[in-house]
């Protein structure tokens, strides 16, 4: 049942040996019932992401980008359609089974960083490792803190860190468990242009060395253009556009 390790299929690999799909969406729709009408947020989205690919989901505000990301990561259930995540049909799994599927294999980076406020930088990175039951949690956390250049800030809590530093901690936390897929929701949305650019550099650099499949939501064209593929959403309808 477990799909092959994506590390065997580097992103730059040629199409001759086709890597397996890690995320697949079939006729994916999401509708929300309000008091007097039904709102369609996503409509019949089709998507297939291979191991090691980098996909940008773009679109205007309210076009359904974050909703799609949430559905693909198994954080929510679609109104209709199927999602296959790492070879598993999510509609066959309940909430807890989906959580188990994510544990240690899926990483997240959020626009609002989502660091635990009372925990130090190091402890924030430790959390997913502890959750995944890694015995080498502390060493790995220290290693990833070093990779993002914040070893000196290990004992600092999020409120003592700048926005850029907080996002670097969040990225270290996302990579710490060696996930097969990394979902990033507007990772530069809360940062100024310079800091954002540095964060993107870091994200791509780490992703390249870890060979992780990266799916990121952004409305930043410059960022989207650095990705291999781009899925553009307009009012819930998705279309793949060529990367410039």
């Amino acid at each position: 049942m477990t799909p092959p390790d994506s590390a065997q299929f580097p992103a730059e690999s040629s199409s001759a040996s086709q890597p397996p799909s890690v995320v697949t969406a079939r006729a994916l729709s999401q509708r929300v019932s309000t008091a007097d009408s039904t709102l369609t947020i996503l409509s019949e989205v089709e998507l297939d992401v291979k191991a090691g690919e980098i996909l940008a989901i773009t679109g205007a505000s309210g076009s359904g980008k974050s909703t799609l990301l949430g559905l693909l990561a198994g954080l929510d259930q679609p109104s209709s359609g199927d999602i296959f995540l790492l070879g598993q049909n999510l509609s066959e799994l309940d909430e807890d089974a989906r959580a188990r599927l994510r544990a240690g294999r899926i990483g997240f980076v959020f626009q609002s960083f989502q660091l635990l406020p009372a925990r130090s930088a190091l402890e924030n990175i430790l959390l997913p490792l502890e959750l995944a039951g890694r015995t080498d949690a502390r060493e790995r956390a220290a290693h990833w803190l070093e990779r993002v250049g914040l070893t000196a800030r290990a004992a600092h809590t999020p409120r003592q860190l700048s926005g850029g530093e907080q996002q670097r901690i969040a990225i270290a936390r996302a990579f710490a468990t060696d996930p097969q897929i990394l979902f990033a929701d507007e990772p530069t949305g809360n940062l100024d242009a310079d800091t954002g650019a540095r964060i993107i550099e870091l994200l791509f650099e780490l992703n390249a060395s870890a060979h992780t499949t990266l799916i990121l939501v952004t409305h930043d064209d410059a960022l989207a253009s650095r990705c291999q593929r781009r899925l553009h959403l307009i009012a819930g309808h998705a279309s793949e556009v060529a990367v410039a």
Partner: protein
Amino acid sequence: MRFMRLGLWLLRRERSSGEWRVLLLALIIGVGSVSTTGFLGDRLKRAMGEQGASFLGADLLVTSSRAIESWPASSTQNIPAKSSPLSTSSLATSQALEFSSMVAKGDAFQLATLRAVDAAYPLRGTVRIAPQPFTESTSRPALPPPGAIYVAPDLLPLLSANVGDSVQIGEASFTIAGVVAEEPGQLGGVFGLAPRVFMRADEVERTHVLQPGSRVTYLYQFAGEPNQLTAFSATLKPTLDSTQRLIGSREGVETLRGAFANADRYIQLTALISLLLSVAAIAIAAHRHALRHYDQAALMRCMGATTAQLRTLYAVQLLTLGVLGSLIGVAIGALMQQALALLILPDAATRLPSLGLAPVGIAVVSGLLALAGASLPALMRLIRVPPLRVLRRDLPPLPLGAWISAAVSGSTLLLLIAWYAGDAKLVGVFVGALAGLVLVLTLLARLALFAGRGVQRLSHGPVRFGLAQLLRHRFDSTLQLGAFTLALFLVALLALVRSDLIAGWQQQLPPEAPNYFLVNIAPYQQAAVADYLSQHQLKASELYPMVRGRLTIKNGVPIASTLPPELRDSNTLRRELNLTWTATLPANNAILAGQWHGTHNAAEISVESGMAERLNLAVGDQLGFQIGDQTLDARITSIRSVKWDSMQPNFFVIFAPGQLDALPAAAIASVYVPPGASGMLPGFVKAFPGVTVLALDKLIANIEAVFAQIIGAIQLLLGFLLAAGMAVVIATLLASLDARQQEAVLLRTLGAQRAYLAKSLWSEFLALGLLAGLLASACAEIAMALISDRLFELPARLHPWLWLALPLAGALLVGMSGWLTTRHITRVPPMQSIRALG
């Protein structure tokens, strides 16, 4: 296991968070309160149990109001006569007499309870005698050397006497040879209305205190092998009449333990109120904790944690806090119960058995139950948080059915109450009273807040802003007001009961109401006493001869069988009544039915109306009384009302003259001794040494002292209630802290100074405390008026000082707890606050 470790790790990192601290504080207060009473109750119960035989001073005790002349022959071959030493062939025996008498030294005199003993007393347990009060005592027989007595330490200051001094008992003189430090059946000197004196049985005669008709209890003690005792009591029982009692050591302790268990249960319920108030604080703190951890829980779900894993994680945290809080609470309870023991049993506190383990278990389970009931609904929501919340912050956790929350909390609370109350009826009463109280307090709090709106409109600046806060958080304010009002109200009510009842009773007495009772006036003294009183121009009541008898028969059948089961144990039936006879209807009595017998010399009686109502008696009924070893029949010819607080000798049953005359009867009278004339009393005591002089003001002062001890103990428990009230205030304030901080940041950014913020916070909390104080004053006045009127038939009166003291106390306590919780809002620079709030 992993998640248990993770839970502990997270808990350690959050140990300084406000919610955990409040939760822990509330739990400590609640458990402290129930364990204080639990520990003390357990120690007292075990003291009674451990003492067993030594509690009675024997394995078997027979009490009788007259000497028992003949004993069953089976085991007692030498039947003891009244004056001969009691002995049986196989059982160890001892005989003692107990009676009240005056002990005098110079002009000082004091009523004492004398126990005249033989050399064998006590058969079980020990009497310890010390050479001086509060010095080391030695275990000795209670029998003093000839011409000497042993006295309870509290008698010495009352008589300004020392060990070695000579005192007068009746017509004889005795030397105080030592101080009684311990005796069987005594836990302490709480009810020391008449201090104990041990004397020799063979010296009673020379005091001439005991006259025909004197009130005296004969105590016959037996000790031996269980099978001998069983055989003896089996043959003895049928020979005893209804005025005599056979008490086995177990039975004696059980009776006392039963009475104690009831009192203990009510005190435990008082403690339970603190625990329930703590539950409110815990629920609020847990709710806020959940609210602040939705993001953390969502993130962990996102990272792959299942609901079961989150449940483990939070359960471990809760259990750790629960055990920690309960243990600290138990430790505080252990300290507080010792303070309580010293307060109510100053003499015996050190002799009580050591702390038991059972109350620890009960307190810890109570604490965990309270914690679970209060915080589970919040934590159940927390573990059901949708992982999608990481992307959409506004997404609330799945709602938990209101009925599930209510069922979880409600059933836990009910379980706790049921556990403490013991029986279904008491649970019903307690829950009903609690619900009524919550309803009334909620209504009152809402009304007070409504009134506060007017004040807010009139105010300005920071005060207006502070009051606006109070009115805006209406739910919080109602809860805080309710909790604090309840605590202040109960504390005030107890203080009022303590001071008012005594003062009210004294004030209500008409001027020149009798202030002394003369009891135990022997028949031969009665004429002389009457002469003495009239010679000294003292206003005295008639001298009423008294005979003791028990009401046993109504219209030819045992009276108990004519009553519903719950009335059969009535005090009027259980104890011996004071019966008198007179031809004149006493002052303060009025005939309600039938005709006063007057001088009509027939077997007729007049019965007090309350007794007639309780026992369902009517004019024409034929009653049978057991008086000594004879039975006397009489017909009810009138029903009387009696003004009980008239300070006159009052009687339930008055016979027509001629019926009881043949029986030995000591008389009773009441007399008014004007303040200037009390110097004649020592002369009276000397002239009539056997007569007991009861000073009402001393009696009232004694009752007041006992009252003060008990109320002091309960007030100590109410300290927990006040602390729990403060925990509720702090918990609700913490819950609104984020919103307050946001407002403070905004205000400071807009130019408000720290002083402005501080003033607005103080106005809010002072107003809250003042309101709680005012509400509590109103509640206490109303409750006190009801208690005075309904229970004690005293006129209600207002207490102006209350209306000043309670609002001040409220303002101070709420002000302090509020300011301590929120003050850092005014200190943090706005920029730091903005960052902290994200």
